[in-house]
């Protein structure tokens, strides 16, 4: 938007399967597409289901939604080996220059999957009340240190016996003051709060005031072919 902006704001959306990452992206596109030039990169575990959902929802022109296939390793694609996603973002920025914001959707993964700061400037972590009221309390890098934590589908709270206010309070306790947003696509005021957060972030990025923060790596884990890949990156 300004000459100072070197490139788009790259915003990651992570979180477990089924919490509403694609829906959050569709909501952002619908409400921000007249203000910002947008692009979306999806990461599917298998198939290109998420890209097809977003295309069929008609939230952006189809060519601005591209799928990266992650070979059943969604956490690798956003953290340990970001080359495929980085190139998808760079290609999108080149093909539709100038873009204001590129949204990168992680494949649904476990609670410890977070984006590398080499790939995104900021990240949302999406939980939902239907996944259980205790999830926020469990913490982890995404819940504790993503730039924004979203508690999604709050309209479902009464149906799944989850005390939304308590879940939000638990999340705030895990985050030491970082923002938590209770969201429902049926509550327009919550959508407006989400959009405002993105607007402020974009303004800070465009002005050169935003510094990407790394929520931290996923917990050490083991793959049969790869005994120490949780440690192949810096921890600063």
């Amino acid at each position: 938007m300004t000459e100072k902006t070197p490139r788009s704001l790259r915003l990651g959306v992570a979180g477990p399967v089924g919490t509403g990452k694609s829906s959050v992206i569709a909501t952002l596109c619908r409400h921000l597409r007249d203000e910002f030039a947008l692009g979306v990169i999806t990461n599917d575990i298998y198939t290109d289901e998420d890209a097809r959902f977003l295309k069929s929802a008609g939230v952006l022109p189809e060519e601005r939604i591209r799928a990266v296939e992650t070979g059943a390793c969604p956490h690798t694609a956003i953290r340990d080996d970001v080359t495929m996603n980085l190139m998808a973002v760079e290609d999108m920025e080149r093909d539709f220059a100038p873009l204001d914001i590129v949204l990168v959707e992680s494949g649904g993964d476990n609670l410890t999957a977070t984006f590398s700061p080499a790939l995104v400037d900021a990240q949302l972590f999406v939980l939902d009340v239907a996944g259980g009221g205790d999830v926020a309390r469990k913490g982890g890098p995404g819940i504790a240190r993503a730039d924004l934590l979203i508690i999604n589908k709050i309209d479902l709270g009464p149906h799944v016996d989850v005390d939304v206010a308590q879940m939000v309070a638990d999340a705030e306790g895990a985050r030491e003051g970082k923002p938590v947003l209770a969201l429902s696509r049926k509550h327009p005021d919550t959508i407006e709060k989400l959009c405002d957060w993105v607007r402020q972030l974009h303004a800070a990025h465009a002005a050169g005031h935003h510094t990407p923060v790394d929520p931290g790596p996923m917990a050490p884990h083991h793959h049969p072919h790869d005994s120490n890949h949780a440690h192949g990156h810096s921890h600063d």
Partner: protein
Amino acid sequence: MARAAGGSAALLLLADGRLPAGGYAHSGGLEPAVTAGRITDMAGVERFLIGRAETAGLTAAAFAAAACSRAARDDLSDLSGLEAELDARIPSPELRTVSRNLGRQLRRAMAGIHPHPHYATLGAAPHQPIVMGVAAAVLGLGPRDAALAILHETNSGAAAAAAKVLRVDPFEVHAILARMADRLDRLAGEAAAAAAGPACDLPAPASPLADIAAEHHRRTHVRLFAS
């Protein structure tokens, strides 16, 4: 610019599956072969890997070796000729696209890891073996090393995919790789020997079923691997 001590560590860097160049998203044709029922057990995996090494593997190795020897001489003038010759050896449009995507990714990764002016001369979407050859030269490695790196990448990537698409014991998968070590050394030697000659004379062993399977795979909606 060859390394005095043989460059073994640089070769390991280039061949390591953890090199962040996106190779993990591909099964090297193993998934479509399993989906079609042509591989059902470990003996089938071993036959597949041997067939792949002797065909697509040798072709890739020869082109990696040829690109390496040219880059080591700082003579990249006939790279477009190499690209065209490799295109001609990959009948499947899908597999040509995969090779060029992997090539772009490898260049993106290596240009950040160990920058060199050669990477900018490779064109918009160079084939993976050619980027591997240039990367090997930039690291001070020779044509045989380049051939070995792409053979290892080709073989171990497909083998690692077996654990996700078949019910296998991962130790058995690596036992296959151990049995194939001499074969890969021999193929790397053949590739390096061919590299000095003209591009049109580089090896061209074919595997038509792999080409057909790759086209089917692209049209499948539910798949774990991109190829």
